[in-house]
């Protein structure tokens, strides 16, 4: 597997791609997803999409005593918008590459920079 972040050169909203590409490089890693309702789930990252929806397998709820109904659940789909944090294995993250990607993305003009954001 090629572990690199690459972006299509002429995307109008590059913003969508940085973390999507980043999470794709973490597929197969064990992560802990903490939701906005405080439920935290550890599992293997199976897939991610552009909304940062996440599929996890071999899951284990961090505080099982508080959420006993989750014990039989073995895999799950998490809507991106309910995520607060994702704890990542540090050794799986190339921080220099990430920073470069973030800087490169910052150079793209955004709709906000253009000033007039019109809604039809």
């Amino acid at each position, binding site marked *: 597997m090629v572990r690199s972040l690459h972006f299509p050169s002429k995307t109008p909203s590059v913003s969508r791609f940085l973390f999507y590409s980043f999470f794709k490089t973490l597929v197969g890693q064990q992560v802990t997803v903490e939701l906005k309702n405080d439920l935290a789930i550890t599992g293997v990252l199976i897939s991610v999409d552009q909304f940062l929806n996440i599929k996890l397998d071999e899951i284990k709820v961090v505080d099982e005593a508080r959420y006993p109904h989750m014990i039989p659940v073995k895999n799950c789909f998490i809507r991106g918008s309910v995520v607060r*944090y994702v704890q*990542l294995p540090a050794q799986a993250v190339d921080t220099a590459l990430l920073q470069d*990607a973030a800087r490169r993305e910052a150079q793209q*003009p955004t709709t906000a920079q253009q000033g007039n954001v019109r809604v039809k």
Partner: protein
Amino acid sequence: MSDVVPAPTTAVPAPAPETNAVEEPLDLVRLSLDERIYVKLRGDRELRGKLHAYDGHLNMVLGDVEETITVVDINEETYEEVIRTVKRNSEMLFVRGDGVILVSPPSRA
């Protein structure tokens, strides 16, 4: 998202060269890459960590993070408010931008 259109008369500016000038608010965040920053989040949470990545939504990846959660407990007998802070650490943390209230870079005095 498709209903947001840039004004047709506005020419798309050429990508600005990377500078140290703060011309738009996100420049403050850009200039904090590879620095330790302070982030205030919804739910009385604060983070301190090294900024490795961010995007326009304020999604971020932080390294060597210390999280401080402020909890207000009510004493059941006296109804006094007891303020307590809980600290947690993580090596590498993705933070979803919609919870972000404020980002403060290290002071560049």
